[in-house]
């Protein structure tokens, strides 16, 4: 039978185990709580950005203005027709302020699609200005917002007739940046991020993996390789802005590459993620059991054959995971890109690697700095898209790991 001392010690050990489990669960709970708090704030602030206020007015497509391309004039006459009592110049300007300054584009597109419209009347839903948008979404009251008293009155009258509605905000996904919040979108930034990521992946993956393979499988273990190894580990810990400065000095000032280009951004991010990829790949290569290498060498495989036939395929899940996580990290990077001019205000969606562009995190940074109330929700929405981007990449890492995972 168990004597008393053994029993007491056993009880203490079980208690210690229970305590440890409890600590673990508590820390997981705290981490989860932070995550949920983060997501709730961002989603809570940002989800309204996916809707956009529209105002339905009857537009008459008169031949005169259409011919001159004065579609803004069409918008103005439509509003004037809706509120005939507004006559004073200043009042009229305020009235036109209800509608976004970009609303005329819709009319132009309509006429281009269907020239038969000219001379006819149509009810068209036009983009409201951001001040109206904020009031309709309830972020500000009609009095506290930037609407003037008459504007608030007109809006109320429009809402009474059911002319004001919330529609899905496609502009947010397709447009580039803009000074007008209702016309601003993340399209440009997403495309810029994608271009930069393609450059990073195409350079960092092959370079990083071949470096890791060389150091791990071929290089002699001497003072030089040790020095290189220490340096790579140190590089991984260098603050990212230093890589930005390096990029500025090397790519822009010395090699005269264009400013704000995704190519340069990708190059800087490559420099930044290379050490991480090399370290992750080396760890993955190290984890391949030496007995596999011996077996292949014993059969007469050359070093390169051992690597390409056995070691690399077995290390691939780890290498891919490391690469994707490094790239995802690079995608979320802001500081080094500020250094090479990707912080510029860019309206056009980049069409190539050399076009001026911005990236998602920089877009977030820019919008977070803008005074308009409507940019607050757009900032959160852009963060949501960035997070979704990262979540997809991490998911990809998991899927790839599962797919390539093997036992030995």
């Amino acid at each position, binding site marked *: 039978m168990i004597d008393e001392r053994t029993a007491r010690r056993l009880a203490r050990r079980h208690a210690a185990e229970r305590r440890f489990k409890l600590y673990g669960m508590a820390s997981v709970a705290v981490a989860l709580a932070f995550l949920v708090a983060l997501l709730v704030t961002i989603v809570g602030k940002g989800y309204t950005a996916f809707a956009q206020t529209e105002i339905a007015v009857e537009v008459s497509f008169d031949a005169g203005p259409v011919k001159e391309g004065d579609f803004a004039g069409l918008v103005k006459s439509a509003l004037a027709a809706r509120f005939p009592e507004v006559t004073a110049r200043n009042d009229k300007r305020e009235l036109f302020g209800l509608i976004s300054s970009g609303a005329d584009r819709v009319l132009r597109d309509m006429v281009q699609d269907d020239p038969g419209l000219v001379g006819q009347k149509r009810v068209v839903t036009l983009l409201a200005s951001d001040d109206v948008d904020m009031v309709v979404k309830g972020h500000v009251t009609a009095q506290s917002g930037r609407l003037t008293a008459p504007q608030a009155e007109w809006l109320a009258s429009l809402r009474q007739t059911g002319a004001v509605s919330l529609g899905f905000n496609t502009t947010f996904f397709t447009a580039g940046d803009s000074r007008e919040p209702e016309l601003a979108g993340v399209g440009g930034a997403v495309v810029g991020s994608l271009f930069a990521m393609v450059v990073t992946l195409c350079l960092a993956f092959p370079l990083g993996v071949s470096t890791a393979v060389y150091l791990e499988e071929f290089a002699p273990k001497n003072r030089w390789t040790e020095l290189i190894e220490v340096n790579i580990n140190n590089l991984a810990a260098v603050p990212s802005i230093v890589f930005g400065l390096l990029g500025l000095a090397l790519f822009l000032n010395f090699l005269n590459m264009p400013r704000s280009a995704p190519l340069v951004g990708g190059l800087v991010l490559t420099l930044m993620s290379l050490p991480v990829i090399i370290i992750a790949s080396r760890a993955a290569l190290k984890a391949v059991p030496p007995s596999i290498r*011996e077996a292949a060498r014993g059969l007469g495989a050359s070093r390169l054959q051992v690597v390409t036939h056995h070691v690399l395929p077995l290390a691939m899940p780890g290498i891919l995971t490391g690469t994707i996580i490094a790239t995802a990290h690079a995608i979320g990077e802001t500081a080094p890109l500020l250094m090479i001019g990707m912080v510029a205000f860019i309206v056009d969606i980049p069409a190539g690697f050399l076009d001026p562009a911005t990236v998602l995190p920089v877009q977030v940074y820019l919008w977070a700095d803008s005074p308009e109330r409507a940019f607050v929700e757009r900032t959160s929405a852009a963060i949501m898209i960035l997070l979704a981007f990262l979540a997809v990449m991490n998911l990809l890492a998991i899927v790839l790991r599962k797919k390539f995972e093997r036992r030995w």
Partner: protein
Amino acid sequence: MNVASKPAMGQATLEDRRSAKVSARDVDVFYGAKQALKSVSIDIRPNEVTALIGPSGCGKSTFLRCLNRMNDLIETCRVAGSIWLDGEDIYTSGLDPVLLRARVGMVFQKPNPFPKTIYDNVAYGPRIHGLARSRAELDEIVMTSLEKAGLIDEVKDRLQEQGTGLSGGQQQRLCIARAIAVSPEVILMDEPCSALDPIATAKVEELIDELRQRFTIVIVTHSMQQAARVSQRTGFFHLGELVECGETEQIFTNPRHKLTQGYITGRFG
């Protein structure tokens, strides 16, 4: 000891070397500054099983690895002396280690099949050495190798399953099949049965005896009984030296050296 044994070995040298498959002369091996083998000379005859025995750490594996230059992979390792395969010095004649290892195959202590299918495990060697000109020929090589390794009945319906999914004994026989698939002339086995149960061991031993018809085999073993059962000649290593080498019968019944006698009767080791 050296004084007594040298003349005997020297006499054997002339006639043995002419018929030897592999012969080693004055092989010294260093790991860094540490000497692991001291002036080892031995002749390994064709179509015989030569067993290497000796206490742990005496350099049996080290010597075995010299015979197909697997020691090249260990950075600190340095080999001096000469080893001939069919009269050709494998260290200095410019023979490519890759080709050497196709002629001198190896089976390791722990079964180490590739994490690939059973078929691909066996087909790997022939593939990299270009031994098969067609798919049918490769199939043929795989099937005969598995048959020679005594594994065919157990795996013929599951050639596309993972080699790592087999039992330990089956895995070891798969490794043997993999080694003989490249038709080596010599097969080196480093304690091939140390991870196996008695039944699997018996199967592998049976296999070794059959393989002797076609190949020259050098086997390292810790089991006296195994050495006695499978080998024709036995070499006894002690502290990096080859103390005694001769007919297995003679070594086990009438060892010339006191150390050998002590080891085989279990008084030390």
